[in-house]
């Protein structure tokens, strides 16, 4: 006996007949496709939140920038420096310089309450006081509307994300701080980074408005090169005049985003798993009814000499095609709905809102489609095996 002839064309034709006849099983096929699309859309949607948040946080920190906090402090909130310390830090070798001096900005921040545009409820927004070097440290900063605040004046400029999320931050508006009114003079972008969620003003002005004396909370510094970091950090921590903690900015933000990212990822997988279980049953049901509706047809093909292995593979393929259609639909849907969807969330390390955009990344789409494939394969396997195991003679008796 010869080996089975052209196995692949057998598979191809059986799968083709199945898909052609899927039109007759429209309702259950559509339900399955939509179910799988739902799983993929929700999965990608939820994880696009953490991908977007992560992206915002990592866009904030470059590897050749450092943040210096008081030792023992995990965030700027609980850190503090006097004028003298900030001067010693700025003079430490390893920091990049320009014509005006070292690119080291001693900063402080306070939290003010502003109403969210969407809900009208108050939320915490960071108001940061910076020194002129801040613009050299965060070199991606761009004024997009209005102008930069003037040094020494009660003026603020607002990050694009904060301007979008909160009411009363348009250029020309007035911000009530204490008993005073501070005009908003400009809007700036920072490549989607955390600074976009903040309001900036002169550190000196902020100190006096909030009776902070001559104290700061953190120092943002740009290094001469990424490689300069180790020596710079070692020099600072070894300095007996200082009690500091040095972090690369990239690490600092990654740490801050970790908790939220982990939480969202866990929720995403949990929800997707539960939905996927439902979708597997949907797919099983569809393929079992496909097999049942085609019992005699499949038996006829096998009577003509089509192999049972080809039947199994073809039915799996059919289920896979339905799943991929569902997966593509779900991925497209989630891309349209969630990509660049702007949101704000609490950053628990700074107790203030971070604005960011959901990111439907290619990796997420890949994962979503992988889920669809898994659902399709599991949903197709058992019905396919049943179809191939059925004794032909008995199956031919069925109407």
């Amino acid at each position, binding site marked *: 006996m010869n080996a089975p*002839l052209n196995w692949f064309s057998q598979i191809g034709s059986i799968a083709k007949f199945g898909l052609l006849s899927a039109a007759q099983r429209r309702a259950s096929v559509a339900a399955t496709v939509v179910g799988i699309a739902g799983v993929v859309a929700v999965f990608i949607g939820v994880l696009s939140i953490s991908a977007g948040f992560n992206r915002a946080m990592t866009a904030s920190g470059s590897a050749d920038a450092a943040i210096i906090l008081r030792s023992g402090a995990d965030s700027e909130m609980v850190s503090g420096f006097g004028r003298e310390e900030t001067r010693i830090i700025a003079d430490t070798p390893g920091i990049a310089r320009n014509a005006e001096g070292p690119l080291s900005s001693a900063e402080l921040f306070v939290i003010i309450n502003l109403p969210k545009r969407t809900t009208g409820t108050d939320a915490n927004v960071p108001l940061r006081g910076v020194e002129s070097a801040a613009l050299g440290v965060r070199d991606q900063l761009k004024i997009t509307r209005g102008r930069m605040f003037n040094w020494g004046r009660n003026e603020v400029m607002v990050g694009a994300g904060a301007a979008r999320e909160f009411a009363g931050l348009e250029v020309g508006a007035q911000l009530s701080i204490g008993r005073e009114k501070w005009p908003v003079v400009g809007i700036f972008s920072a490549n989607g980074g955390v600074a976009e969620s903040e309001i900036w003003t002169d550190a000196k002005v902020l100190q006096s408005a909030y009776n902070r004396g001559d104290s700061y909370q953190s120092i943002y510094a740009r290094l001469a090169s990424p490689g300069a970091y180790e020596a710079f950090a070692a020099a600072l921590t070894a300095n007996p005049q200082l009690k500091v903690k040095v972090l690369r900015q990239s690490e600092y933000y990654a740490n801050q985003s970790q908790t939220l990212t982990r939480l969202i990822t866990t929720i995403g997988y949990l929800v997707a798993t539960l939905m996927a279980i439902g979708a597997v049953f949907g797919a099983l049901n569809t393929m079992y009814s496909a097999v049942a509706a085609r019992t005699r047809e499949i038996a006829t093909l096998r009577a003509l000499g089509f192999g049972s292995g080809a039947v199994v593979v073809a039915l799996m393929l059919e289920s896979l095609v339905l799943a991929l259609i569902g997966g593509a639909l779900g991925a497209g849907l989630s891309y349209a709905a969630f990509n660049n969807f702007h949101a704000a969330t609490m950053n628990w390390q700074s107790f203030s809102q971070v604005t960011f955009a959901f990111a439907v990344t290619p990796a997420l789409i890949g994962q979503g489609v992988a889920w669809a494939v898994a659902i399709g394969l599991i949903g197709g396997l058992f019905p396919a095996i049943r179809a191939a195991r059925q004794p032909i*003679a008995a199956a031919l008796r069925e109407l």
Partner: protein
Amino acid sequence: MNANGKKADPTALVRVEGVEKVFHRGSEDIHVLSRLDLTVATGEFVALMGPSGSGKSTLLNLIGGLDRPTTGSVSIGDDRIDALSDRQLAVWRARHVGFVFQLYNLLPVLTAERNVELPLLLTHLTKAERRRHVETALAMVGLTHRAKHYPRTLSGGEQQRVGIARGIVTDPTLLLCDEPTGDLDRKSGDEILNLLQALNREQGKTIIMVTHDPHASARASRTVHLYKGQLASEPTP
């Protein structure tokens, strides 16, 4: 001793020898065929009759390699098909048997010509060769003008002619028909029988046909009757 009243003929095409078939339904054993012998020579047109439930389809399925006997042997030509594996049987069926079913069993999603082409997908023929074979088979059953029609737009008689074209398109050793006229009116049934008779007389096709209808069996060159698991050349009450 077999129904033909002669010893198994080694030159015969179909040799069913000492076949028993027992089905199990729950704890119950259903003895359908018991020590049954049947020989069919090349070029014969045999009608297989018998009461409903007597095992006609069962016997036909054993000869067509769709099922295996509980005991006994089934040989077609040089092949002991009861000894073949499922996979070998599938290849053997594709090569040697054409089936015609009572309910035609056409694929509704395919046109007449695509339905006829199905068994050819299991051969090494090129597309052009397949098309030629399909045209020939459709011409034989007089349905050339219906080639592009879907089964649901054809009458029962036409659908069965498509079924026959599919059964003969590979030029099989054996054509097995299970009540091919069972679902047709007298006129369409006669057309089908004319066709089968012509295939037998003009092409020398060996045909075994299960039927309830004496009109149908009258067209065969020989009729055998199945009763209580055994064959007889005369109908038994």
